[in-house]
């Protein structure tokens, strides 16, 4: 009951905010706010693989791309068939159903991709796994560059505008709640045991294979959702948004925030996105200064800005 009330309240607040936010803060800040939300989803989900399960993935942009393109193509090619079937609904509800269908497709496709990458993770460890995930992300990008139906190197344009502040932040809440509950469940303890000592975990009867793949699949599904939200907000997708540098920025977010901590991922995603925007004031030296700041943060606070500090304490994690 308490949970239902929480979600109703959250939805109500989001609807009210959605109604006024764009007029209040203007389109530029609105855009940044949306990007912060999408990056939070990506960072919190990546944190599940890298921080909680202790597997080293630097290919999150690949799952993000799979989700973005699957979701966008389902809506783009399917809307002429889906909309008439929904004609009894008002326009807004039609949009919502279309978006949700798109996000489902994105999550599903990214989840399948996550499964495919999770399998090699059974054999590979540490940096070998890292480079395979990075390679996977690049393979996806090159494939997209060669598929004409989704725009190839021209980029995929004409995606309908379906997502907005409400949807992005609704999924921010869903992601955080899911990952939080997962980490504090028996599954989460299995993930953490794999991170802390894989051999010991196996000896205690944890099916490490199953849990590693599971963490990959869940994490990539959320990346897929983030991709869908991104595509339907920007109305345009280009493979260059999904370069391995995107994965690097996501890694930066979770490490700067504090690896393994959900709060850390949220703080990291918000800070990195906002700082990169604020630094536009430095003109051409924007990324130079960002890089120096990054090096200094890691030298002076290696455990991340948030570290192991946590907002909600629930048992021992």
């Amino acid at each position, binding site marked *: 009951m308490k949970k239902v009330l929480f979600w109703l309240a959250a939805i109500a607040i989001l609807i009210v905010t959605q109604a006024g936010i764009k007029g209040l803060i203007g389109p530029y800040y609105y855009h940044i706010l949306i990007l912060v939300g999408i990056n939070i989803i990506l960072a919190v989900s990546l944190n599940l693989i890298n921080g909680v399960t202790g597997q080293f993935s630097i290919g999150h942009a690949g799952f993000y791309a799979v989700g973005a393109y699957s979701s966008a193509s389902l809506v783009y090619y399917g809307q002429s068939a889906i909309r008439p079937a929904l004609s009894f609904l008002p326009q807004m509800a039609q949009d919502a159903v279309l978006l949700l269908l798109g996000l489902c497709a994105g999550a599903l496709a990214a989840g399948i991709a996550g499964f495919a990458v999770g399998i090699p993770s059974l054999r590979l460890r540490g940096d070998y796994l890292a480079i395979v995930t990075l*390679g996977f992300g690049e393979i996806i990008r090159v494939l997209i560059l060669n598929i004409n139906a989704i725009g190839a190197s021209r980029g995929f344009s004409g995606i309908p505008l379906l997502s907005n502040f409400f949807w992005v932040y609704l999924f921010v809440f869903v992601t955080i709640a899911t990952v939080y509950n997962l980490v504090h469940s028996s599954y989460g303890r299995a993930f953490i045991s794999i991170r802390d000592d894989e051999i010991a975990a196996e000896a205690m009867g944890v099916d490490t294979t199953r849990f590693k793949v599971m963490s990959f699949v869940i994490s990539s599904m959320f990346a897929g959702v983030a991709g869908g939200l991104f595509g339907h907000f920007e109305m345009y997708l280009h493979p260059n948004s999904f370069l391995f540098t995107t994965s690097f920025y996501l890694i930066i977010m979770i490490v700067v925030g504090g690896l393994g901590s959900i709060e850390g991922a949220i703080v990291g995603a918000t800070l990195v996105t906002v700082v990169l925007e604020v630094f536009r004031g430095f003109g*051409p030296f924007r990324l130079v200064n960002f890089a120096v700041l990054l090096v200094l943060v890691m*030298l002076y606070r290696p455990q991340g800005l948030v570290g192991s500090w946590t907002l909600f304490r629930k048992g021992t994690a």
Partner: protein
Amino acid sequence: MNTFLQQVINGISQGSAYALIALGYTMVYGVLRLINFAHSDVYMFGAYMGYYLANSAWLQSRFGTSPSAAIIVMLGAMALSAGLGLLIERFAYRPNRSSSPLTLAFWFGILGAAAGQLFGETMVWLAVGAAIGFVAGALIEKAGLKPLKQGSRLGLLIIAIGVSLFLENGGQQAFGADPKFFPEIIPTKLINAGSLKIDSQKLIVLGVSIVLMLLLNLLVKYTKTGKAMRAVSFNLDAAKLMGINTDRIIAITFAIGSALAGAGGILVALLYPRIDPLMGVNPGIKAFVAAVLGGIGNITGAMIGGLILGIAEVMAVGYGQSTYRDAIAFVILVLILLLKPDGIMGKGSTDKV
């Protein structure tokens, strides 16, 4: 058959350049267990240093276009790249593991220079900003705010990504974002070998790479420093206990790896003269793939990996779809790692650095 042989030659010369860059990755990984993402930008730096040296009035008036000019360009760029490698190691990676004064002063100096250029685009403002930043950083450090010396491996990786970002974007400021054209420091000749036509540049690239790799092998196998490098790579703490100055050995490793990357930059610029500040990104990632392919931390493996990758890529472009070129490296990587999770040369079977 002829075109096939031609492609093999192209592939080997491309691959030997990858191998040179891969060596730096693998050596640094050996001693620090760090994927040094900044390595690809040292390669870019090497190419630019070669460009400026070759175009310098001093060199052109003294040596003209004689072969010694090419050698000076090569050695000069290698030395400057080694210097950059040392700077990176000293101010970005070392503070993460042992005490290193003036770190904050160095980075504040750079921030100061960046802030200085907001006032005016002249060197004076840049220098004033750098000086103020340096002094401020030194004072803050004097007051007791020192790096923590307890970094994690992942923290070090983020630092490496940061340094890479820094060099790429700093390079765009220092060298200009527009591409430049590397001068032809060695005149091209077409050599007819039977029915094959071989570009002399390709032979030079191959020859120089082989010489450098042989030198590296001699150094690692037969010198005291090489022995120390192998010891550090085998077990850093044990090496320290045996009285090896590990910080010094790590610095030397960085210098050698960076010099090889600088040489790689010039050799690739001989083949493809267009250079720009982001030129390192793609070859860098591929060279790293080559290092992993061969078994990371393993010198022979890096060479083999580089050659495989070079040949495969050239073949893919020559016989198949050139648009898939950038994916080839990764497909091979995934396939080989699925069969042999520790890379071709495995682990511990041969010498590591």
